[in-house]
């Protein structure tokens, strides 16, 4: 239960950061925080027998992690392309 709640808190913090932050890299990191919260909820809330880990939930989360990593890499490469002409900082307004 405590893991599920912690996951919920991470999800909310991450989603808030994704929209509230100005800095693009920070926004991408926020998305990762939200994703981590989601994974935590899925793993901790699934599996009705406490002693056995639910393999389907783990497969879901594993797939989710792979997708999150590739999306993050792609987003960062776009940020670099966007930034290649500018002299300073990723984007103003963030910190």
């Amino acid at each position, binding site marked *: 239960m405590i893991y599920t709640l912690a996951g919920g808190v991470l999800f909310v913090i991450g989603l808030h950061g*994704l929209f509230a932050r100005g800095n693009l890299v920070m926004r991408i990191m926020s998305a990762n925080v939200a994703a981590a919260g989601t994974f935590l909820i899925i793993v901790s809330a699934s599996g009705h027998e406490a002693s056995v880990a639910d393999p389907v*939930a783990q497969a879901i989360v594993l797939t989710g992690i792979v997708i999150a990593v590739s*999306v993050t890499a*792609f*987003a960062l490469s776009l940020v670099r392309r966007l930034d290649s002409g500018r002299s300073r900082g990723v984007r103003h307004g963030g910190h």
Partner: protein
Amino acid sequence: MEGIDPWWAAAVIVGAPLTGGVLAILWGALGHVWALAATAAMTAAAVVATARIGRHGVIHLALGGWSAPLGIHWRIDGLGALLILTTALVAMAVAWFAASPPRRMPPAFWPPFLFEVAALAALFMSWDVFNVYVALELASLAAVTLVAQGHGKAAVAAALRYLLVALAGAITTLLGVGLLYAGFGTLDLSILSRALAGPGLVGWLALALITVGLAAKAALFPLHTWLPAAHASAPAPGSALLSALVVEASLFVLLRVWMVGFAHAPVPGPALQSLGLIGAAGIVWGGLLAMRQRRLKLLLAFSTLTQVGYVVMVVPLSADPRWTELAWQGGGMVLVSHAFAKAAMFLGAGMIMDAAGHDRLENIRGAAHAMPMTLFAFAIGGINLIGLPPSGGFVAKWLLIEAALNGGQWWWAVPLAAGGLFTAAYLFRAVAVAFSAGDGGALAAVPRRQEVLVLMLALASLLLGLFPAQPLSVMAIGAPTHSWSAEP
């Protein structure tokens, strides 16, 4: 055709564009060849699958021989088959368009184009909510890549904004999917539908999360702000695919979750009505903003918001079980006819842009004299978006309004009808400028092959309106009704 195993059809539908995409990475110089071959094979397989469904009903496939709940279940119903066929035909036309010399798209265009098509095809077949999520993610990634290939930094910025919204939507959707699994122990839509007869807090929370997540990806009001820049920034063949099909895929999933997954759940009336309100707001807001646009591609992008609104209307309109099928067919008709019409119009806008060097509305005066066939096709597409007879858009709107009036929800007929007026207002302005007297001679020549392709796409949307009986009866196969969940 009888003897063909539906397995083969499904394998070719997804496998051909997937293989083509890999080949296009390995042999980039031949990208257009792979794309033409893959989309042709996919179209043939889609015809086979659709014909089979017309004769024998819904196709069920258990991937790897494992049936649900252990394995992943693919299920092609009537609307799914028609959307796959639409995807294949539009993709084939776009591929021919993009392969036309002298403006052939560069090698980098073809892999994301083909992966996009493969992801869409897989999505239209998936009957497993996690499988749907994965397909949606692949579709979003390929779509963002297409946007980023537009001109300059603005395109990259639009792509990044799209990616961040899509990412937020994806994480939210995934949380909803995870909650469904945690609460009900299955990902299969049929089994979920029975379990969700009593959704409880977990079920409702999952529905809310999935709805918000998909709303971001489908650009539902008020989560639509990323769409116009993204769709207008992509190169024309990319825009055609994005506006015609990618947005519709998220909408299709939204319809399935509400109308299949939660078919037996006691969804409260206010939830349905607020979804209708979101649709109505999209129709009006998209129309108002489209009127203010001075660039053709942006105008078309905003008009997509109106069409998205029509489709969302299906959910409240299907609340009365007697009119569920009618609303489903109406929504399906919007999806299919808008796909053809919008693809034609975005490709047409791309040709105008190539010929004039820009797409500013005030400066395309006389374009109709230089490229009459393209502007004619553009006008036909417009008839479809407005919903004038004899187009598919007219049939769609007729069905939706009929469902609204018969189901005792007359108030939804107002935005459905008003959307056509808005659309007419801004499309007439664009067409009037293009047909007015001017020096169309200043425009560069455009390839004849591209003109013919655009016209064929536009005519397809018109044919749907002239001969609606056949597609509508196919859409009814496996449509969500209140007795459908007896299926395996």
